[in-house]
């Protein structure tokens, strides 16, 4: 339990460790994309942690990184094929950012730092925690960007072929507010993440002062 909590707050991959920012910034224009990307990364992360932890005793140190990259690349290719055949819309929305999970520093970083040193059970828990932390961070960013940037919140759109119905809600009454489309643009992504990170820092530091 503590490992999972650690991944969400103390070692949050996006706000604290600053890993895997490429997909974070690119995907978070819609709430739906954010949690789907989060789920994809979490699954790959858990499975790669599991495999790496299982074979950690047979891999010599000198070839660690290439072997891990190959494992991750294989997993991502499987994920790509699965999405391509079962959820084509999602596959198209993600575009190149799906294969880019391979070079997402979170997964390789966790494989090198945690999974290659600890037991199987612990590394799976670590994968869950970090994955969850990543997903939550993506959801927060996407929520802010989508609600303010286009005045909608998309719960199900491109996965509607699987779930059967679409769910796109308007938050504020239409035609009364002009959405800040700046937030949807790349510049808005950097700004949102920067501000959120500053808020996160302030909260963590505030908490420390109280505890002393």
């Amino acid at each position, binding site marked *: 339990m503590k490992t999972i909590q650690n991944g969400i707050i103390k070692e949050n991959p996006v706000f604290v460790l600053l890993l895997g920012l490429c997909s974070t910034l690119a995907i978070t224009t819609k709430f739906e994309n954010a949690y789907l990307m989060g789920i994809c990364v979490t699954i790959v992360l858990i499975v790669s942690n599991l495999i790496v932890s299982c074979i950690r005793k047979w891999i010599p140190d000198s070839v660690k990184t290439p072997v891990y990259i190959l494992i991750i690349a294989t997993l991502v290719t499987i994920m790509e094929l699965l999405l391509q055949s079962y959820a084509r819309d999602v596959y198209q929305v993600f575009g190149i950012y799906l294969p880019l999970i391979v*070079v997402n520093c979170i997964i390789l970083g966790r494989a090198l730092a945690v999974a290659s040193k600890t037991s199987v059970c612990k590394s799976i828990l670590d994968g869950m925690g970090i994955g969850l932390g990543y997903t939550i961070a993506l959801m927060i960013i996407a929520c802010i960007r989508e609600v303010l940037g286009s005045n909608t919140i998309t719960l199900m759109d491109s996965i509607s072929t699987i779930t059967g119905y679409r769910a796109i809600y308007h938050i504020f009454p239409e035609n009364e507010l002009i959405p800040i489309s700046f937030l949807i643009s790349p510049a808005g992504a950097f700004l949102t993440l920067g501000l959120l990170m500053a808020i996160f*820092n302030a909260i963590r530091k505030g908490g420390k002062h109280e505890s002393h």
Partner: protein
Amino acid sequence: MNLINLFIMSILTENIVLMKFLGICPFIGTSSKEKSAFGMGVAVTIVITLSSIITHLLYYYILVPTDTTYLKTLSFVLVVACMVQIIEMLIKRRNIKLYHSLGIYLPLITTNCAVLGVLLLNITNQYSFLEMLTFSIGSSLGFTLVIYIFSTIREALERRNVPDSFKGYPIALITASIMALLFSRYLIV
């Protein structure tokens, strides 16, 4: 004419760092010093240009005829990893001085999203060989340009008084946001 257009577009308006968010990790992580930013930029330019040629040939002459295009992610990662190893060895043997200034950045490039991103974009945009070459060189020059400018800004920022919770990464991201605004198409139109 089209190629010149593509070249300028890939450097400025479609900049891989600021518009496509590729290579953010080195952009934020290693760019606090002017010199290291330049070194990283040069190393990335070399790797992207060479590996884009190889992956282009690999994709259109091996993967497409054998109908195994789903292996592109896996094989491209391998190409980049091998490329980085080979370049590292070559530089080490030929020019030890250059190795000391570039060497530390080379292993990092394997997991740099900018490299794999450009290679994948070459394929998804279905560029011909010349277009591919132009796009690759343009993008990597764009990467170098942005990372260099950014590092000089960050060096200056270090001497300024920034609110406590904004210190470090948050202010860097906000700087990046303003840079992205400058590079975006809205201002040009």
